[in-house]
């Protein structure tokens, strides 16, 4: 920097250029956050056209969430559907990433495949879900094909069974995200020093051994990063199960996620319960974010 006098007079521009971000953030994120926390301590809902509350009730909303609110059930549902989608996602992404970054394999048409696998990431989740709802209905194309091929004797009621509904949600999540993960992991793999691979080859290692003994361990930081960010995303699961089950999470609410539950309260204008649930979600994602943040910070240092 130039002499102090000049540097200071320019540096105030740093503050000036930050103003838009700060102002908008305060208005649309910070203030709503405080409002949400504030509301969580009040009983506040609509009874027909009349409003009950707001009456201060302390932690009653929180207590209700855990005792009557089945919050554990919805957390479980969310986690199950996340894991069901994430495990194939990571496995397939690792496989594809390894293939794409393998210079010896020299796969052709990589650009085509990458374009195709990333495509679902950009699809409107609600439209995608509506599509699957139509396709997998009792008389829909999927059943028609399976029956005509003789794989099924009668149409399978995908939406009348707990695990098939959950599997469809997980499958859609997988489709929408595995392309993104593949590209991420591929970039990570490309960043690995090729001399490691060369010396391993000289030692006579098979590609499988190379993958499990060299690539994977070196990828561990990225894998952890991907897992936690995916988890944070998973906790926000909403569009797909909401549209698929029309907000019911049926059968028996087995596909109802935390955000669907939040949406229900917001829709019913039960702001007390919605507030409490939001605060809990905030705390959980806040902790997870901190972990990612710390983690990325460490990665920065080791570079």
């Amino acid at each position, binding site marked *: 920097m130039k002499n102090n006098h000049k540097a200071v007079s320019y540096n105030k521009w740093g503050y000036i250029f930050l103003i838009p971000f700060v102002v908008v953030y305060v208005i649309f994120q910070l203030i709503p956050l405080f409002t949400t926390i504030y509301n969580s301590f009040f009983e506040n809902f609509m009874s*027909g056209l009349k409003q009950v509350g707001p009456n201060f009730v302390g932690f009653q909303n929180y207590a209700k969430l855990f005792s009557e609110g089945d919050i554990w059930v919805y957390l479980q549902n969310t986690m199950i559907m996340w894991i069901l989608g994430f495990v194939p996602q990571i496995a397939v992404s690792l496989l594809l990433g390894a293939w794409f970054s393998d210079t010896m394999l020299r796969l052709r048409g990589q650009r085509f495949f990458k374009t195709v696998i990333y495509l679902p990431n950009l699809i409107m989740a609600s439209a995608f879900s509506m599509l699957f709802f139509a396709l997998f209905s009792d*008389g829909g194309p999927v059943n028609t094909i399976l029956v005509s091929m003789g794989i099924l004797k009668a149409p399978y009621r995908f939406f*009348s*069974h707990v695990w098939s509904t959950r599997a469809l949600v997980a499958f859609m999540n997988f489709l929408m995200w595995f392309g993104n993960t593949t590209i991420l992991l591929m970039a990570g793999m490309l960043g690995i020093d090729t001399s490691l691979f060369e010396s391993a080859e000289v030692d006579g290692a098979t590609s499988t051994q190379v993958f499990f003994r060299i690539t994977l361990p070196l990828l561990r930081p990225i894998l952890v990063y991907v897992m936690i960010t995916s988890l944070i995303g998973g906790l926000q699961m909403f569009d797909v199960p909401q549209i698929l089950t029309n907000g019911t999470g049926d059968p028996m*609410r087995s596909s109802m996620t935390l955000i669907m539950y939040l949406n229900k*309260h917001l829709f019913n204008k039960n702001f007390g319960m919605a507030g409490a649930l939001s605060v809990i979600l905030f705390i959980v994602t806040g902790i997870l974010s901190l972990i990612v943040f710390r983690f990325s910070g460490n990665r920065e240092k080791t570079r």
Partner: protein
Amino acid sequence: MLTRTTWMLSFPAMKKLRLTTDVVVTETIADLGITEDELANQFQYTKDIVTDSEGNLRGLSWQGCPGVLIYNRDAALDVWGTEDPEQVQTMVASWDTFNKSAEELAAKGYKVVSTVNDTYRVYSDNATTPWVIDGKLNIDDNIMKWVEDSKALVDAGYTDTFELWSDDWAKGFFPDGKVFCYFGPAWLINFSMHADEEGSIANLGRWGAVEGPQGFSWGGTWIAAAKGTDNKALVADIMRKLTIDETIMTDIVKADNDFVNNKPAMEAAADDDSFAFDVLGGQNPIGMFVAGADKIDRSAMGDYDQGCTEEFQNAMKNYFDGNATLDEALDLFKKGVSEKYPELTVE
């Protein structure tokens, strides 16, 4: 100014209107200068629905929506050798005979109804107690009867658990769907059964109508005057023309195969063959509608109907599909109601 609710929305529209009448956004009919006497030819239930809590009538309808059982003529021929309405009615005159017939129909590969939700409205319209009594949730016996009967039908494979209006539900409108009957009013017959599509049963005119086990109603359109309107005279005139004038209302029936809110006109039409419905193979169902409309009793209607119905049908689907016991499904229903209406007592 006139406000109009779309005629296909049933509970949502009616609920909205009742709420708005209570919150007074409409003029009373009396204030518009239309007298009780002028409305004498209308069916009582159309007036009951839009009467506010103080007894003031706030809207008028030109439509009557009594429902009938609409049966697949070819299915009846196949199973019982007759498609004559009188004969068919004996097969479905009560829920007991209806359920028995389901067995006979199944033997020939037909589902008695497309989904359990087809019959729901018939049971619920004949409920004598409302969903909420003194702030407490209540389930009428007739509705529990629907659950019982439906579970038996589903378990035996005589029907399915589709959502109304879904693609699967609509398959029965075509011969391949192999569904015996639907329940619905005039507008279902001429609007919802895919009459314009080649190959549908409606297009071939192969439906028939009978009263079925119980009467019911579904939907309707009401017109009301916005409060504070400057056009009271104009509004009143429009209302008179649409909901009282016999000539105009009869024309509506001729043109749209609709059923209008004018008893004498409809009684006359019942005997007049020019009012026959093509979809019903030339049958004139108006007499049945008249009989049905008189019997409709909507006094048990309440503000919580739509929400409770929705939660109830969703919850019961789990029981029908075998994903929950009856108690678990009822618990789910109660939970849904208490989330929607936290002010109610639910035990």
